[in-house]
Every structure is written in structure tokens, then in C-alpha cells.
């Protein structure tokens, strides 16, 4: 009887059901991770690839031109619906067009369709009818495209000249004027030159026939770029893709964060994380040395160690609350009363800012650094310390010459993990100083160059804001994908470095374990 039950418990071969279900959970987790990363990579990078513009003729005779975005089944199985991005928001008030697939008569991709990027109103799509200058001279046909391209190149170089002039000549002199009350003689000439450049940019317009049969007049000075995606060769598209990626990384946001780039957010994130590392490293290492090398290893130290470990598991929003209550309202409010009396009631340090955000994140990542450094210190065998002391070194010399150099890779690992954690953390920043749109970068040419009280932009918050508070979420989506991809890449690279370092470390010190 007993034999029979044991026999029945075991399947004839294989490992039974559990093995496959548990393998399935590994596969499902990996699949979810892969799907997430793949989605971000595809949508994030795909956005910059010039997609073809379709000219759609509907069965009621209406025409529209736009980039196909996606297709969705209608409710109750009534076929499919397709979304086109048609642009021309200034003409019909909408940038998107939902079209029933069954109502489409013909779709073609004529080469002459032009996609214009403008400073206001977003994209414009249509056929280029003519380019006019102020004198009324009109260029039509194929020559118009060449004229447009030439003028665009000219505009770009003019804009660049204007920006350098403004940044390098005019703004510093305005700063001097505000402080000393005297105006540099160059200022007038520079100003005149600026006005000259501005005037050279104006004039001329472009006439676009939209697919709906309307005419759109665009002042050339409003144009950012123009392209004919259907006429582009793969190489042209690759170039356009590259420049699109570059502009995304190097420009500021436009149109309420739904277009343009994320440069200020990259800058803000990096600056905040750097300040945080500068703040967290000395204190974290100090605390770890105290806990591991100086403090008496008793029950109390063990409790403190457990407490510090647990603080790493406390929700980040709690740190944000602490930062708001203590740093912003407490210390910042007091500082405003003492030093910035004249600007009250508008707060200087009594509101969220770069300094408070970095301090809060430093506190948040302190347990990470302490734990990592302690692990490194514990891995160093006691013989090393005893040897140093036996040779007559004081404790300070033993620590600084023997122990700390050996623990350096562990500290580095701790710092990288802290940076990776801080770069992805958004919730506490929402309380202590991140801004939806910060016109001024916290670093500039004005004394004291680094403005710790200013608000800053952050990649993670940019994602949240553009995806949930923007007016046209649909338009912001591709940029949100790209920003998310950028953030994930940064964090992945940082973590991979930490993992590599740790691996390197464990192989190097493998023979030297204390326990």
C-alpha cells in the first residue's frame, strides 16, 4: 500500500508540473522586461525616423494628408479605425484625424508632400505651392523647394549667429549694467547688429496647399525645418534621424513640453545628481567607517546597523516629506528671514530648489552608500589592520593608508548605486524643487554662477508632466517615450558599471574573506 502511494506520487519521467510552472514564471518575467525595453526602444527611437506621409482619399471625396499613427478596432466589431497625424492645427483646430478604414477609397504617397515644422502651431503638411519674398517675387514649382531649402539654411545660420551674439556679448553687458550702472560702448553696436540679424530673418513667406484644399501661408521666419519624407532616400532618412536625435538631446522643450528636446532636463538631472554625490559620499563613508572601524561592536551598533539598512526600504516620498518640512520650510524659511529679508514675502530658499532637492536625495541614498561601504570594509581581512597596527601605524594611518584604499572599489560601487537610485527617483523631487519648465538653467555667467535656490528640470519629472499634465498627450507621447528611453539607458549604464565593479571586486578579494 505504501509502495503504491509513493509510486503514484512520482510521475513516470520528468520533474512533474511544478518545474514547468516555475520555468514559466521565469519566462514571463523576462518576457515582460523584454517587452517593456523593446517598446521604449522602438517607440523612442522610431519617432525620429521620418515616416511616410499618406494622401488619403475618402469615399465622400474628402482628402487628407498625414502620417499614419495607429489602427484601433471599433467597438462592437464594426471594422477598424485609423489615426492620422495631419498637423495644420491653425486651420482646423485639430492635429489628429480619425478615419474609418472602410471609408478609405485610396491611399497614395506622393513625393511632393511637404512636412514643415514651425515654431507655433506645430507641424504643417501639404503641397508646396510657392515661396514669396517681400518684394512680391514668387517662385513656383520645383524651384520653390530649392529656394526654400536655401532660405532655411540661411535662417539656421542667422539664428545661430543671433544666439551666440546674445549669449556672449549682450547678456554679460546687461549684467554689468545692472550691477555697475554703466553701459559698455560695445553694447549699442552689438544691439544694432542684433536688430540687423533679426531684420534679416524676417520677410518672405511660403504658400502651402493642404490636402483639404485650403491655402496656408507660413512666414518663413516661423519655420524650423522642412522635409519631403516620401522623396527621401534611406540615407537621407538616416541623416534626418540622426539630426532629430541630436536636436532632441541638445534643444529645450517647445509647445508646452510636447515638442522640442530635453536638454535642460538632462542638465538638471546631471547637476542635481552630481551635487548629491558630493554631499552623500563623505558623510556616507564617514558613517560606515564609524560603524565598522571605530564603534564598539555591541548590541547597540548592531541595532543601528539594522536601522540604517531599514532606512533604505523606507518609501522615497517620506524622505520628500522630510525634505519639505525640514529643509524647505524649516532651514530655508529661516535663511530667508535672516539673509533675504528684502525679497520677502516671495521666498528665495524657502521654496523648493536645487540645493534642497540634492540634500533630500543625499539623505535618501545615504543608507545605500553606508551599506555598500560597510560591505567593502567587512571584506578586508583583520590581518591587514593588525599588520598595519603592529608596524606602528596609528589608527588614522591604518585607515587612510591600508583600509580605505582597499575599500575604494566598494565605495565606488556604493556611489554608482546611489546615483542610479537618485537619477530615477521622482516622487520626493515633486515636493522639494523640480519644475515643469525652468527657463533658467541653474548654472550661468552671473555671480555666483551656480544658483542653488533655483528650480530645475528633471528627466523623470518631465516624463510625468508631459504624459499626464500636457494638453495634447497624443502629441507628447513620442517625446515621452524618447525621454523614458534616455532615462532607462542612463540608469542601465550606471547599474551595469556597478555590477561589473562588484564582480571585479569579488574575484579580486575572493581569497580574502573575513568570515
Amino acid at each position, binding site marked *: 500500500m505504501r509502495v503504491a502511494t509513493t509510486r503514484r506520487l512520482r510521475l513516470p519521467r520528468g520533474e512533474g*508540473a*511544478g518545474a514547468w510552472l516555475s*520555468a*514559466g514564471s521565469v519566462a514571463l518575467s523576462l518576457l515582460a522586461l523584454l517587452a517593456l525595453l523593446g517598446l*521604449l526602444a522602438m517607440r523612442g527611437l522610431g519617432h525620429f525616423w521620418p515616416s511616410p506621409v499618406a494622401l488619403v482619399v475618402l469615399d465622400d471625396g474628402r482628402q487628407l494628408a498625414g502620417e499614419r499613427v495607429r489602427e484601433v478596432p471599433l467597438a462592437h466589431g464594426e471594422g477598424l479605425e485609423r489615426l492620422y497625424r495631419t498637423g495644420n492645427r491653425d486651420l482646423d483646430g485639430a492635429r489628429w484625424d480619425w478615419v474609418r478604414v472602410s471609408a478609405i477609397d485610396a491611399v497614395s504617397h506622393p513625393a511632393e508632400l511637404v512636412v514643415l515644422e514651425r515654431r507655433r502651431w506645430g507641424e504643417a503638411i501639404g503641397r508646396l505651392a510657392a515661396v514669396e519674398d517681400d518684394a512680391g517675387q514668387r517662385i513656383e514649382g520645383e524651384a520653390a523647394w530649392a529656394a526654400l531649402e536655401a532660405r532655411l539654411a540661411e535662417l539656421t545660420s542667422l539664428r545661430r549667429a543671433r544666439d551666440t551674439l546674445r549669449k556672449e556679448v549682450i547678456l554679460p553687458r546687461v549684467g554689468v549694467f545692472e550691477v555697475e550702472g554703466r553701459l559698455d560702448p560695445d553694447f549699442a553696436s552689438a544691439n544694432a547688429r542684433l536688430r540687423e540679424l533679426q531684420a534679416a530673418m524676417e520677410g518672405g513667406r511660403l504658400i502651402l496647399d493642404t490636402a483639404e484644399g485650403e491655402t496656408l501661408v507660413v512666414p518663413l521666419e516661423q519655420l524650423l525645418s522642412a522635409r519631403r519624407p516620401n522623396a527621401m532616400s534611406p540615407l537621407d532618412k538616416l541623416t534626418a534621424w540622426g539630426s532629430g536625435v541630436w536636436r532632441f538631446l541638445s534643444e529645450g522643450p517647445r509647445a508646452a513640453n510636447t515638442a522640442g528636446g530635453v536638454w535642460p532636463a538632462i542638465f538638471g538631472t546631471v547637476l542635481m545628481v552630481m551635487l548629491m554625490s558630493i554631499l552623500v559620499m563623505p*558623510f556616507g563613508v564617514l558613517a560606515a567607517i564609524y560603524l565598522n572601524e571605530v564603534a564598539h561592536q555591541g548590541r547597540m551598533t548592531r541595532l543601528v546597523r*539594522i536601522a540604517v539598512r531599514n532606512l533604505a526600504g523606507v*518609501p522615497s516620498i517620506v524622505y520628500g516629506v522630510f525634505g519639505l518640512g525640514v529643509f524647505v520650510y524649516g532651514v530655508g524659511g529661516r535663511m530667508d528671514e535672516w539673509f533675504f529679508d528684502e525679497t520677502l514675502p516671495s521666498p528665495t530658499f524657502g521654496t523648493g530648489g536645487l540645493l534642497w532637492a540634492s540634500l533630500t536625495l543625499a539623505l535618501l541614498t545615504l543608507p545605500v552608500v553606508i551599506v555598500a561601504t560597510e560591505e567593502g570594509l567587512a571584506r578586508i581581512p583583520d590581518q591587514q589592520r593588525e599588520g598595519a597596527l603592529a608596524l606602528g601605524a596609528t589608527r588614522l594611518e591604518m585607515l587612510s593608508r591600508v583600509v580605505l584604499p582597499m575599500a575604494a572599489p566598494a565605495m565606488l560601487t556604493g556611489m554608482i548605486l546611489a546615483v542610479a537610485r537618485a537619477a530615477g527617483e521622482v516622487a520626493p523631487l515633486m515636493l522639494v524643487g523640480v519644475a515643469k519648465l525652468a527657463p533658467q538653467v541653474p548654472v550661468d555667467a552671473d555671480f555666483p554662477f551656480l544658483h542653488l535656490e533655483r528650480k530645475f528640470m528633471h528627466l523623470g519629472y518631465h516624463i510625468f508632466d508631459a504624459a499626464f499634465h500636457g494638453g495634447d498627450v497624443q502629441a507628447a*507621447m513620442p517625446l515621452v517615450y524618447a525621454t523614458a528611453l534616455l532615462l532607462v539607458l542612463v540608469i542601465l549604464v550606471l547599474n551595469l558599471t556597478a555590477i561589473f565593479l562588484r564582480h571585479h571586486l569579488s574575484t579580486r578579494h575572493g581569497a580574502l574573506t573575513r568570515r
Partner: protein
Amino acid sequence: MPDSSPPTAVRRRLRQGRDRLATALITAGGIGVIAALLAIGVFLVVEVLPLFWPAGSTQAVSPEALWLPGEAADDGTRYRWAPTATLMSDEAPRISLVPLAWGTLEAAAWALLMALPLALGAAAHSSLFMSRPLRNRLKPTLELMEALPGVVVGFVAGLVLAPWVERHLAEVFTFLVLLVPGLLLAGGIRSGLPPRWQQAVPLGWAGLWLMPWLVLLLVAANWLAPWLEAVGFGGDLRRWLELRLGLDIAVRNAMIVGMAMGFAVMPTVYALAEDALSGVPRSLVEGAQALGATRWQTLWRVLLPAASPGIFSAVMIGAGRAVGETMIVLMASGNTALMTLNPLDGLRSMAATIAIELPEAGPGSVHYQLLLLAALLLFVFTFLVNTLAELVRTRLRRRYQRLGGGS
């Protein structure tokens, strides 16, 4: 001692003085840093105290108002969180923390429901069946998954997954139904294969080659869903759920939060559970297998009893993370303070409420103090849970040393 300049008394005293100074500085700095960290709890308590024992003439908030049912409102709910209602109407502000606590725990429960089978299954598989090279790769991969920022996971959950699930509700349910039989079918098919083919798909690498199989299952679910809907649910699952079961369906709901947060919590639980399982002394496992147990039997009869405290602490730490996660809940839950058991309806957690409302609440006001109270609750809860887990783990480590004997 061949020293060119023998240490004079002055130099020695200088060195010792410097050493003493440095030790004092390290001690002071270390204690200071640790005190600053621990000050978080003290700060929250100090700020929250005036809520219950006010200094001036302001009315104290009674614990009953926070936790017990109030008068029923227009819509019949007796627990409501509306701390700023006075600005709009003459109604008194409703400050019941119950819906927020409910939302927090509901989100955490759904997250754990999603994460635990995945994490524990993966831990069991990687400690028992998985080939060593794959296991060495899997660990860092899941560590990377853990490091993915909440804001990215929340964005994908709230703006991509939620609308997709809303349109493909039937497909998702069909996939969940198909998942277990599908995986067993994969195992069955494999054991039916000729031995040479079996070697091409070894059990040790099943975590990888089952991925295309899962995609296949997804396609099958997509194909079967309309049929299932037509047969079982009158052609439309959504309408059936709304009419028959009376469920409200929100785009961003507790199930989406559970999926996203389960994704975020899973690697944490996996890492700790895998540590606990692989920490069990090898001699026990080998002994059980020498006596004729299959690997799965070894897991149930030997590994799990030995490692159960470690697994318990892994689950606790996962719960702590799920309770405090802010951005995912904020972006994927719809933030409606409802108290239902319906997984397809929205919720609002404490952490998300703090993130939304604290910047607008004036410092020192009752609203501000209430939000700080919520933060204090989060702090205390996660701190206790983590301490418990840590204590259990320390005890477990000692037990392993005893069990392992000399090895």
C-alpha cells in the same frame, strides 16, 4: 631599527594627537549622520503631535474622525477623504484616512498577488533546475529590472498598458486562463519528444525557450478570446461584467497598478528568496536527492521548510516596497479614493495623496499635518516590516550555520 630620523617624543605626540582628533571627528560625524537619518521619524512625530494636542485655540482632531465612519454623504459613503472641502462649500472637511489606507493596502495586495507567484516560482526554478550559466546571467538581469525607475514603469502602465487592457480585456483573461495549462502542455510535449530533440530544449534553459511559447500562447489567446466571449459572456465581456456583476470599469484601475507594481516588486522578492534558497546547506539537498527524491520533492520537503523564514522576510520586504511606491500608483491608478474590492476600479494610495496634495497644503495647517500623519504611518509600517524581516533573516543565517555543521 634602521630609521634615519628616530621619532622624537614631540612627533609621536603629534601623531597620536592627530589620531585622537581624527577618531573623535569620525565618531562625531558618524553619530551625526546616523542621527540625521533617524531624525526623520522624530521629525514626523513632532510635526504630527499638534494634530491631536494643539497648542493654541484650534480644535484637536480626534482619532475617531480619522478611522471611524462619519455621517453618510450624498453618495452614501461614510468614509471620505476631502480635506479641503470647506473652500468649495460650507460642508466640514472630511478627513477619514480609511479610503487612503484601503487604497494603499489594496494596491500592495494586488502587486503581491502578481509578484509572488512570479518571484517565488523564478527563485525555485533558478535554485533547482536552472543551468548555472543562465542563472549567473539571470541575477544581474533581474537586478536591472529592479533598477528601472518607477516613473517609467508608471508611464508605460498608465498610458500604454491601461488603454490596451481596456480594449483587450477578454484577451487578457483568456491568456491568464491559458497560462497554466499552456505551460503544462509545453512540459508534456517536451517529454513526448524523442530524446535527441529533448536535449535541444533542456529544462535548465526553459526560462529562455519558454518565452516564444508564451508569445504563442498570447496569439492563441487573441484568437480564442472572441469565441470565449461569444460563448460565455454574451459577446462582450465588458458589458457582461458591468451588467451582470455590477462592476464599474475604470481605464486605470487596481489591476493595472497590480501588474505594474508586481513587475517592480518581483525582482526584489526574487533576489531575497533566491538567496534564502541557495543558502540552504548543500548537504541537505544532496542527502534528499540521494534518498531518491525528485528535485521538486526536495524543494517542498527540504528546501522550503529550511528556507521558509527567508522567504517570509522576502515577502515582507516586497510588501514594504509595494506600500511605499509612489509614482507607479500615481500614474496607473486614476487616484480616485474609492473603497471597493473590484479590481477594475480605481484607488488612491497614501503615498500618491502626499505627492499630489502636500505642495498645495500650507505648512502648519491641519491638511499639512494630516498628510504628515500619512507619511508617518508609511514610515512606521515600512520600518517595522523591514525590521521584522531583518531579524528573521539574521536568525535564519544562524540556523544555516548550525545545519551546515562544518561545511
